């Protein structure tokens, strides 16, 4: 077997004195979609942020290999250049900066660092318009300020649109379903499905199984207190939906021991 695209070993991370990740082990291969589920506070979003390089979290132990290289040694923008993308749970507003301009700056920054030719405004516009179709976005979005005054659904669609433009190798979707009604959820999910390719891996973080009806994962992992406590195929998500996260309470004692430390 070839090396997985992403290999996480015994990852520990904290904010201040609070340890949030307590030994994550995970392997994700190219072309695979892994769902990460778990109750609030289990560390799902922290894992996403640590992978994307957020400074707020200190990694205290473990390693993350991406394409066989130490991902944690890279700055956030170097990770973006290497093909890591995170769809934010709460996309940030940047007043006065046009969506199209923002995205072109991002794409060109990445292309420049890769030694590729930058796209001029006209070429980029044509390119962006093509990608917008994927999430059924209106062209009026392009002229608006980044996420400013966007509805929840629009923000999430915008994230997937950005992902389509930046064409990452590893996409981490952090609760992309939160705050979406069923129609918006379908639109976003079909956008994500349209981006599934044999060489792209995705980590889909969600609280609810509902999203996984639309984005069908290859593997499902359940996080509890900063560790993966169960892994399985799609049926695990369905089981969780029936029994709720209470299911986790009957877990092996090792977890409780860890908790009691």
């Amino acid at each position, binding site marked *: 077997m070839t090396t997985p695209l992403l290999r996480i070993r015994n990852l520990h991370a904290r904010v201040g004195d609070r340890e949030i990740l307590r030994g994550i082990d995970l392997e994700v291969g190219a072309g695979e979609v892994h769902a990460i589920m778990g109750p609030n506070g289990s560390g799902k979003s922290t894992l996403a942020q640590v992978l*994307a*390089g*957020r*400074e*707020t979290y200190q990694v205290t132990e473990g390693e993350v290999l991406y394409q066989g290289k130490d991902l944690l040694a890279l*700055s*956030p*923008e170097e*990770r*973006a*250049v290497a093909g890591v*993308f*995170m769809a*934010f749970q709460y*996309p*940030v507003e*940047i*007043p*006065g*900066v046009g969506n199209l301009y*923002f*995205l072109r*700056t*991002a*794409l060109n*920054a*990445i292309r420049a*660092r890769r030694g590729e030719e930058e796209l001029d405004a006209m070429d980029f516009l044509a390119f962006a318009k093509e990608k917008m179709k994927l999430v059924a976005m209106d062209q009026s979005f392009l002229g608006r*300020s980044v996420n400013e005054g966007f509805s929840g659904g629009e923000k999430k669609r915008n994230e997937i649109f*950005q992902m389509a433009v*930046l064409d990452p190798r590893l996409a981490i979707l952090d609760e992309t379903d939160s705050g979406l009604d069923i129609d918006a959820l379908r639109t976003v999910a079909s956008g994500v499905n349209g981006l599934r390719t044999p060489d792209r891996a995705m980590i889909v973080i969600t609280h609810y199984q509902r999203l996984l009806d639309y984005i069908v994962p290859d593997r499902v992992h359940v996080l509890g207190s900063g560790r993966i406590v169960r892994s399985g195929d799609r049926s695990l998500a369905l089981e969780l939906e029936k029994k709720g996260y209470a299911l986790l309470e009957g877990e092996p004692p090792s977890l409780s021991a860890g908790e009691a430390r």
Partner: protein
Amino acid sequence: MSAPETLEDLTSRQYKYGFVTDIEADAVPRGLNEDIIRLISAKKNEPAFMLEWRLRAFRHWLTMKEPRWQNVHYPPIDYQDIVYYSAPKPKGAGPKSLDEVDPELRRTFDKLGIPLLEQQRLAGVAVDAVFDSVSVATTFKEKLARAGVIFSSFSEAVQNHPDLVRKYLGSVVPYSDNFFATLNSAVFSDGSFCFIPRGVRCPMELSTYFRINAENTGQFERTLIVAEEGSSVSYLEGCTAPMRDKNQLHAAVVELVALDGAHIKYSTVQNWYPGDAEGRGGIFNFVTKRGACRGKASKISWTQVETGSAITWKYPSVILQGDDSVGEFHSVALTNNRQQADTGTKMIHIGRNTRSTILSKGISAGRGQNTYRGLVKIQKSAAGARNYTQCDSLLLGSRCGAHTMPYIEVKNRSARVEHEASTSKIGEDQLFYCMQRGISAEEAVSMIVNGFCRQVFQKLPMEFAVEAQKLLSVSLEGSIA
């Protein structure tokens, strides 16, 4: 590297325009007394009314105290240690055309990136280049003359159009107005004069580049723009100055007069030497700018982008005298390192249905201190007056400061005055969002700040807007802690 550290690096780029041009200067002795003023007036071959006006101002100035209410701090200025007049000495006769301009001076302009010929050809802008205190090159005069527009150095206007100067000089900012305006009235060396006759739309944007050069020379500019009934003009003022160890005082006065239906748009990009990272050196920019909407439905619009100077202290204001007249103030003020700015506007509503808009964007970085100070005054006579004010402050880091001091005086019940203010910090979340998308912290800060200022930049003429954006990015390098 952490985001704050990166920001620290970004904001310490060096001032690009630091050099001194070696041109022989023709200066008067250091210090200030009536003889010096007589000498300045004589050197400029001024008519008697000018000398009298200067002397009245000087005598009044002697009775005044330097103001201390502003939220800026600087060591005492020794007014006897300033050379009040300095003119570049022409080698041989004065230049008759651009080709005859002192090559040394031309090289200076080249270094600044404003070659006059290019400017003329590409932008169609007439440039009245003020180098130190005397205008040495005035372009496009003929085209303007055909339209009946007078655009010349102030000295030339005093010689060629004394009646106009006499009629309007001091009519908006009287010689007794304030300490620095009064000093300017006594000693001003040169500046620009524009006169747009009735019904004429000025065929091009008028532009002046100011430059402070001779060492220890206070620069006292005087600008007067008069727009007659139904005329319109757009005036651009842009500045850079060479690097200096010693603080230099700059006390300019700008007066605008708009008669019935006239429109004046006055745009400034100010990038004088701000001093080093510790606050040494840099220009003291104490300026009085005021416009009078004297006529019905006249309009005066100030737009300023202030990124330079150690201290910026100015309140471009509008007196809304004519019924239905309109005043606007759009401002971006950036302070980095130890820079201080106390700037804003005064909108004085006198006429009926007068309207004013204030849009102020303050950016503080490093240890910069940024104060918005504004007055909206609605007189009893100003029935139906309206004002809308928006003051936004953006902080980069935790050692800088933003202060907002709006004063509102309303004496007419039918007036409507709105004030909105906000203060925000460049969020770690905004930076991270940009960086996750592959944009470096440096580019991200510049992008976020430019976005913050967009509403104001949109008010600038196109070529200025581009320059202003670049300037902002350069000025920000090295901010935040």
